[in-house]
């Protein structure tokens, strides 16, 4: 009998000035994957950070080994969507995890994503802040109002059957991510939303796992009038196109 091919999980982590966060997130990833006896790799796509992110990444390659940590830098800030396309070329696993490097997404949830994926062979598993035990830390009333309002708008207009459309902590089958990313056009705030809406339109199965979202421990996240207008335009465009 031929050996059953083992699942391998590749984390694509786009970074820009994440010198402080990158080592700790790597440590947390290693801890999670080792505890659950999973095969993994981390692909760091750094957009030419001036703060020394790449030097730290090289130290991590020495510490954890080149079969675990892969550094694939790009010349400058080229955006999130193309960072995933770039990272995908070097993926050796059959599953890809995308997440933020700023600790808002805790790697411990990856184990739950994987368990959920296995239950019904889902194509995508996405973290949700809005269902079950999910939630956020560090948000005031205004921030919650904007977040909930934005999500409600998208839910009503796009009817995606997903409770957290703008979340960016997800597990994809590799070929599914490749396919979805090909058809996705938008950048910035609406990128993650479009990925999910396109995936739904292509008929992929999606499951959700509640996550606790700890807002940026270092640095602040911005959310102003301009972002809200951009977001509304993004929702409207998807309504027309998908």
């Amino acid at each position, binding site marked *: 009998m031929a050996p059953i091919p083992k699942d391998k999980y590749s984390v694509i982590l786009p970074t820009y000035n994440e*010198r*402080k966060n990158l*080592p*700790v997130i790597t*440590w*947390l990833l290693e801890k999670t994957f080792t505890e659950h006896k999973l095969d993994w790799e981390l692909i760091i796509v750094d957009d030419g950070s001036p703060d020394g992110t790449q*030097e*730290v990444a090289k*130290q*991590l390659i*020495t*510490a954890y080994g080149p079969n675990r940590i892969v550094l694939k830098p790009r010349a400058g800030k080229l955006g999130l969507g193309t960072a995933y396309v770039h990272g995908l070329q070097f993926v050796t696993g059959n599953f890809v995890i995308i997440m933020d490097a700023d*600790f808002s997404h*805790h790697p411990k949830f990856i184990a739950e994503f994987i368990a959920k994926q296995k239950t019904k062979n889902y194509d995508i598993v996405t973290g949700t*802040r*809005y269902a079950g*035990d*999910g*939630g*956020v*830390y*560090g*948000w005031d*009333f205004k921030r*919650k*109002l904007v977040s*909930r*309002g934005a*999500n*409600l708008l998208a839910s*009503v*207009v*796009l*009817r995606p059957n997903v409770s957290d459309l703008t979340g960016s902590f997800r597990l994809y089958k590799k070929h599914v991510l490749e396919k979805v990313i090909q058809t996705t056009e938008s950048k910035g705030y609406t990128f993650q939303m479009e990925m999910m809406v396109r995936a739904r339109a292509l008929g992929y199965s999606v499951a959700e796992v509640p996550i*606790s*979202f*700890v807002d940026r*421990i270092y640095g602040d996240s911005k959310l102003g009038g301009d972002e809200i207008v951009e977001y509304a335009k993004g929702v409207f465009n*998807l*309504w*027309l*196109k*998908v």
Partner: protein
Amino acid sequence: MTRAIETISALLLFSSLYLAAFLGLIPFPAKVQEEIIPVLPFWALVSFGAYLLFSLGWGIFTFNDTEAAYHELVTEIQQAKKELRVKGVDVD
């Protein structure tokens, strides 16, 4: 079919049905015809708005604060930094 076409088709279907009812092309008892049908669109609009407001309020009200997750993370970050230093990785 995009979501826009879906939504617009549904709206067109409902508005033609409503128009037929409004113009008396579908027989209804006089009381329904005179007192209910004329205010139906406003009722639908107000109900939809109320539903949206309720969803928004309920969503904010039930939005969990995950304080424990924060404290767990802070502890882990400290432990990570200790172990990373031993491995020769620069951390603050």
